[in-house]
């Protein structure tokens, strides 16, 4: 039988994450990060390092914390409630796991401890114009030189590109194979242009114009399946984040509906509002079940391509409709820029759109069903 429980340690972890976020990452910080365009709070990221959050799923020998995907989902759900912005997903999850899975011993020893300490930002550059996930279509080229490569091409929607110490850049190698160089953020020939998003953060268009890197600065071989797995695991955590966002939005709606009086009574007492909120809680709980089911499979090393695709397919639209419902229950007041529900509405949609298009996930599920 499926275990729905959390260990005492996991419960404690959730409480400590929640407390820290409630104490040190109020909505004022969310607004400040967005309005001042500072991308993330350096101060809070340093705290995250201290609290061990940057060591998730990185082995202790490299400075990490003993933990699994369930712990990571707990962190992301709570981070979603607080609308935390940080390079955690690209640096610790995508970067950390890529280095761990495909990196050399030297790279692991050098980069992973720096990641866990919050000393470096690593990001992931895969998508290109018209290419979302099919690596056979990648056009960014790595041309080989005696002592390294030069890289040319354009990547899109790269988070934290302008701050990154390393961009793990999916390129087409000299023999047509996919290689993953670690492009230094300060290398010459690299330009990034900010693209502002509905979520309030920027994703960059990054151009590589004959960027030179040393031979040693690339990760080992990774297949399409390896990369799909890595990326879709990270997407499951984005789904956990959306569950947190939807839960927080629902909580705000409940609070508002109990406070707001129209027709001589709290609007929460109207059956249509109650049913709407009951449906919203059903939706959040369904999404949460799917997320934690999938991270349990991941933690136990059970193959779960289908469940990962289902999670992305279901959680994105479901959580967004919860947030829309929550906004609707607020009436006019929830549509003014000053109201925090608008931050949730925008962020939830941005995260969903970065999960990739739904046809991709439907296709995987259908394939797994043997269709």
């Amino acid at each position, binding site marked *: 039988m499926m275990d729905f429980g959390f260990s005492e340690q996991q419960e404690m972890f959730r409480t400590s994450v929640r407390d820290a976020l409630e104490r040190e990452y109020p909505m004022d910080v969310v607004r400040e990060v967005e309005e001042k365009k500072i991308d993330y709070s350096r101060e809070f990221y340093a705290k995250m390092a201290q609290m061990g959050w940057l060591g998730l799923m990185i082995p202790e020998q490299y400075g990490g914390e003993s933990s699994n995907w369930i712990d990571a989902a707990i962190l992301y759900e709570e981070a979603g409630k607080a609308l935390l912005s940080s390079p955690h997903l690209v640096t610790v999850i995508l970067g950390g796991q890529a280095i761990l899975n495909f990196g050399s011993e030297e790279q692991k020893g050098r980069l992973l401890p720096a990641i866990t300490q919050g000393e470096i930002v690593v990001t992931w550059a895969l*998508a290109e*114009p*018209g*290419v*979302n*996930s*099919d690596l056979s*279509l990648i056009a960014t080229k790595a041309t080989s030189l005696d002592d390294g490569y030069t890289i040319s091409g354009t990547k*899109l*929607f790269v988070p934290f590109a302008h701050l990154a110490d390393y961009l793990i850049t999916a390129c087409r190698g000299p023999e047509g194979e996919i290689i993953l160089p670690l492009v230094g953020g300060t290398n010459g020939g690299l330009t990034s*242009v*900010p*693209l*502002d*998003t*509905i*979520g309030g953060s920027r*994703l960059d*268009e990054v151009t590589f114009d004959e960027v030179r890197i040393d031979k040693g600065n690339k990760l080992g071989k990774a297949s399409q399946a390896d990369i799909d797995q890595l990326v879709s695991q990270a997407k499951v955590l984005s789904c956990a984040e959306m569950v947190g966002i939807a839960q927080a939005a629902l909580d705000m709606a409940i609070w508002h509906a109990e406070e707001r*009086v*129209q*027709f*001589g009574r709290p*609007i929460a007492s*109207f059956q*249509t509002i109650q049913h709407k909120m009951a449906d919203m809680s059903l939706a959040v709980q369904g999404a949460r079940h799917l997320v934690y089911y999938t991270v349990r499979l991941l933690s136990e090393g059970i193959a779960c391509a289908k469940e990962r695709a289902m999670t992305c397919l279901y959680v994105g*639209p479901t959580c967004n409709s919860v947030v*829309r419902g929550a*906004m*609707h229950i607020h*009436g*006019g007041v929830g*549509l*003014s*820029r*000053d*109201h925090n529900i*608008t931050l949730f*509405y*925008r962020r939830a*949609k*941005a995260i*969903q*759109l*970065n999960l*990739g*298009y*739904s*046809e*991709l996930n*439907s296709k995987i599920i259908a394939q797994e069903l043997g269709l």
Partner: protein
Amino acid sequence: MDLNKEGEKLRGEIRLFLDEHGQLAREKGIGGEEYAQQLYTKIGEKGWLGLGIPEKYGGAGGTFAEFTILQDELLAAAPEPVSTAALLVGIVVPPILAHGGDEIKRRFLPAIAGGKVKVCLGCTEPEAGSDTSNVQTRAVLEGDKYIVNGTKLYNDAYGYDYMLTTVRTDVKAPKEDGISMLLIDLKTPGIEIIPIWMFWTPNYRRNEVHFDDVEVPSANLVGDENRGWHYLVTTLRDYEWVQSGNIAQLHIEENFQLLVDFVKKTKQDGRVLSEFPSIRHTLADLATDIEVAKLFYQYGVWLLSKGVSSGMAPAMAKLYTTGMAQRLYDAMINITGEYGQLERTPAAKKWIPMRGRAAVYYKFVSSWSIAGWSSEMQRDDIASRGLGLPSYL
């Protein structure tokens, strides 16, 4: 008037005018508020704002149906402040026409028809949102003046001349029977207008208006004292609902066409989007949805133009259209995926599909099920007035 023939002729004239005027303004480099004001004045001079207003009150005669032709064209091609101002003409004129006395009609209607006076609507208050009868703004008659105190929310007061305002004139009567409608000059001392910035675009503004001992001539009372709420839920709400249904169709055909073109020419991972069966079917559903919404709207207009009881039609027009708009804009942003999240900035221009409509409309659409009274109020109306179910309120 034969709407099909003469209506199309009028539509053609308006379209041509908007084209030429827009062209001229671009050549002269006029934009923003200045352009909007000029355009509005010119439309007034053309007499089009008077469509539906009898000639003896300075209008062009005809019916509400003709007015909506103007409205459709403005929504498609004029800057937002112009279409909103005209939309409000279609909302505030009917109750004045239906319930106002001859004197007030003579004072206001020619000025409105000529584009010289802009009137906004002030019903909503902190305690009176969906519950429109819970008006707290007080108007006390002293001699030939009302002294008004209170707060109105989410209206267009900024840049407008008058507000058609619901005020409480009798505190002892049942809530619905103590409200009157006043036309308040927004330049009167004691009025403060504060912006409420909405979240969808950087400069979309609603207003919070405070009335502090504001003196209003009693001649500005519309119709009878203490009948204001009844005017609100009959004439005004019907027209507002039809109009709000219309605004939810803002750029709808154009945006849908942008989406169709986008899926035809955009490749994702090597496959043209229009080849995906799910996307094809979504677009087919949306095309149908849009058609139904348009018919709801046109039916509402048709009934109102006949002057017969419009029954459930305005509520249905608004409820259906706002739902359709949400379905369209959900699909639009979801189908465009990562590109759909981009905001309109110069740097993003190269990548942003559909003129950046996806992100803006995804935000904007969330307001249409609230503005012009929420969807729950239309459902209530359909259930009680339409289906005859007992009211629970």
